[in-house]
């Protein structure tokens, strides 16, 4: 029994070492892990030859078990995605995949422990229950056994060592700090209760909807996200892209993502940050390199200038709006709320709480509590005419 986790972790190390040499290869870790395990087993793998012959039958069972888990995971890969857009078992970037690989290993080990101990407990509870025809005498009193105690100390120690080594390897791997030249850098700033994204090298500022380029093995374009907070603690968690990392004021963090697929990936703030923690949603748009570049170009343009002093713009610029919001190229340069320069390029408003439609926008200005009670956006108290004009102005911010 005790040899499996150890052997399995040896395989895992090998795999991870391979991966260091030849970055992401398109296959998922668990698959490679299994392939290497089988390959190593086939050639008898000298250092473990003893263990391999001695435990070959049980090792086979372990392999079968892994195969079962993996094939279940693979066949349900699309099912995993359709089950939930935020399923941690449907990873699409390198770090999420290494975490997934480790999770499968840990799940396999704990499942094995569970089966054994559960069976022993059930057996003893059923077998040693007091029978109806009991003679009323006390059973033989056993006070302990050092050999047995030693056995069930050493075996768990070995399991822990194996789990620990596998884990340590993945920690070192995911927390690598080396920065490739072609990396995109984004600064994510957590606010109560929305996300600010700044691309310092590209001169783009946006909010709530993060755009990053897809990273394939031929043209790796990983994204380094620097995580800052403007107020309380937050946590950046898009389960299919990476594990979560907290945004803590006065404590800068960073994380890598390199999505291997285009598409929209969802997540949300995972550290309680105040009243509207629940509607601080994350949307990451992974685009092809061309689309991403086009998006950047559009975001860099100043605000679309409609007829110079439209009524709505005048209202925007003479009310409290500009205390918090920026519209590049105008007098509005507030930093407290989301940048609105290209508001209409976004699918949602209020940090993903509701779709970006004229009706929702109007409602959001009139009565934010209706959409996101407790958000820091105040109700603007405008009359219907002004409200319509203001909404119309915002509609021009493409």
């Amino acid at each position, binding site marked *: 029994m005790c040899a499996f986790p150890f052997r399995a972790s040896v395989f895992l190390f090998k795999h991870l070492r391979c991966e260091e040499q030849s970055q992401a290869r398109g296959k998922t870790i668990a698959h490679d892990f299994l392939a290497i395990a089988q390959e190593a087993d086939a050639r008898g793998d000298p250092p473990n030859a003893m263990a391999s012959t001695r435990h070959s039958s049980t090792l086979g069972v372990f392999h079968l078990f892994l195969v079962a888990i993996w094939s279940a995971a693979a066949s349900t890969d699309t099912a995993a995605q359709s089950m939930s857009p935020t399923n941690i078992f449907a990873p699409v970037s390198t770090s999420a995949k290494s975490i997934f690989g480790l999770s499968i290993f840990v799940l396999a080990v704990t499942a094995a422990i569970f089966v054994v101990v559960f069976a022993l407990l059930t057996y003893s509870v059923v077998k040693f229950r007091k029978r109806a025809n009991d003679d009323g005498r006390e059973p033989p009193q056993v006070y302990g056994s050092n050999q047995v105690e030693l056995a069930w100390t050493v075996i768990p120690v070995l399991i822990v060592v194996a789990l620990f080594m596998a884990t340590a390897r993945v920690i070192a791997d995911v927390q690598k700090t080396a920065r490739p030249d072609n990396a995109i850098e984004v600064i994510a700033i957590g606010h109560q209760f929305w996300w600010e994204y700044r691309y310092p090298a590209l001169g783009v500022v946006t909010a709530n909807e993060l755009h990053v380029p897809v990273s394939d093995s031929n043209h790796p374009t990983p994204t380094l996200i620097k995580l800052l907070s403007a107020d309380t603690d937050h946590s950046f968690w898009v389960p299919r892209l990476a594990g979560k990392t907290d945004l803590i004021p*006065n404590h800068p963090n960073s994380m890598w993502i390199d999505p291997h697929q285009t598409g929209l990936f969802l997540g949300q703030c995972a*550290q309680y940050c105040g009243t509207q923690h629940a509607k601080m949603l994350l949307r990451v748009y992974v685009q092809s390199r061309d689309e991403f570049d086009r998006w950047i170009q559009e975001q860099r343009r100043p605000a679309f200038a409609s007829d110079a002093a439209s009524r709505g713009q005048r209202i925007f610029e003479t009310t409290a709006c500009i205390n918090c919001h920026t519209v590049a190229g105008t007098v509005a340069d507030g930093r407290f709320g989301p940048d609105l320069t290209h508001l209409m390029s976004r699918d949602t408003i209020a940090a993903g709480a509701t779709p970006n439609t004229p009706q929702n926008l109007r409602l959001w200005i009139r009565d934010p509590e209706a959409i996101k009670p407790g958000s820091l956006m105040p109700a603007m108290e405008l009359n219907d005419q002004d409200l319509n004009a203001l909404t119309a102005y915002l509609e021009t911010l493409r």
Partner: protein
Amino acid sequence: MSTDAIALPRTELASRPFVDALHEWVTTVDHKRLGILYIVYALVFLVIGGIEAGVMRIQLVRPHNDFVSPQVFNRMFTMHGTTMIFFVAMPLVFGFANYLVPLMIGARDMAFPRLNAFSFWLTAFGGLLLYFSLVGANGLYGAGNAPDVGWFAYAPLTSRTFSVGHSTDFWTLGLLVSGFGSIGTAINILTTILCLRCPGMSLGKMPLLVWLNFVMSGMVVLAVSPLTAAQLMLLVDRYLGGHFFDTQAGGSAVIWMHFFWIFGHPEVYVLVIPAFAFASEIIPVFSRKAIFGYPVMVAATICIGFIGMSVWAHHMFTVGMSSNANTFFVLSTMAIAVPTGIKIFNWLATMWGGKIEFKTPMLFCVGFLFQFLIAGLTGIMLSAAPFDWQLGNSYFVVAHFHYVIVGGILFTVFAAFYYWFPKMTGRMCDETLGKLHFWLFLIGFHLTFDFMHIPGLLGMPRRIYTYEPGRGWDIWNLIVTIGVFFQALGTLVFVANLLWSYFKGKAAGNDPWDAWTLEWSTNSPPPAYNFATIPAIKSRRPLWDLKHPDDPDWKYE
């Protein structure tokens, strides 16, 4: 050896005025009465905390539900967590320790009876102070509100910028005051165990429950002190212009996390070690065998006590510690699985070859064994830091620690209730109601907490008052909420059973379970002085020796 209490003719005291009885309870320094006060107090708060949990579960039954506002929901989870840990679990643990430790070591009372009473009242008023926030937190009486910063109250959410009014102050002061109570009781238990053991009871002959409460008390002294310090620092920040946690002025939010979790994680062991203690007394009696591997059990507990002090930052894998720090806390956290595993195996070996009688206390203990196994295994998953980067702060974590606290601790506490109720009241609990309670609660527990793991795996963070449809979380949340009603029903049956049995239960006699430790040698309920003559013992199971003079334990130990 004569350990029987002097049989006095039962004096009728029923006609006493209520005020006199109340006065007696309020001014008592008797460890048994204080123990019962702790327990009853905890039961009241258990019901309150349970109602808070129910409100949250109704809110989460479907996406975009609006049963309560986000503000109310946030207060509910803050109060639920704080109440359950500080004003249910801790008082329950201390209540049983207070009641049982002196009886089990053949002492007449705790070492410091007046400190004991003082500690209880501190804890009691700490709880009242916390709930007084509902009345007084906004300055104007009647306009208050409960704190909404979460039970671990991360900085800087607790600063005056983000937490206006006084609700956070009530939280801080409530915990500060009850923390002093906990430290007082812990010192009292340590001293009692070290100084008041009866003749013959060397450390190696103490019942396991006493050993485990000894370790628990040591941990309380070490763990509650940093929390108390942190609460004082928070008050300094809020009112005296300190900047410990004020990130705007160069303070650190992370240092609060360290302070909190260096309390918070040992706290888990503070609660679970007494749960182990109950299991270690109850499983042998209902298996009719001595505990397997007594010295190893003691060693494993001490081991848990030490390692348990060095694992706290596994609550902080996502705050951006260096990979070295993360790796260290992975190792220490995984290491604690070893002594914990040893304990499970020893209980298993105790049952092995025994004659297991499934009375209600044993049912709850068996439930505990299975559930604690699962809780331990999900704990191993969370200890693997990268896995925790996905699972941390998700519903998986919520499910995990409820598996520990409800499936592990609460189940053994229920077992302890059914097991020691006859000693405390002189009457047996009703077996049929007890079994009904067990099965209802078991079903409810598994509906709620088994299925709660799944939304966590599907990306649902904790502490959200509502969630988006289409995330695949809906059905699981519905099942979880259904489970809560079974648990509530089970708890009702439990309370009904306690009340009914207290008045109508059949007389218990001194030793209804045919058990082996000293508390069963005196009357039920024991007289104020516990033992007519201080007993002297020769083995870990003095009553076994008495019942089996031909085959006493001391020949083998």
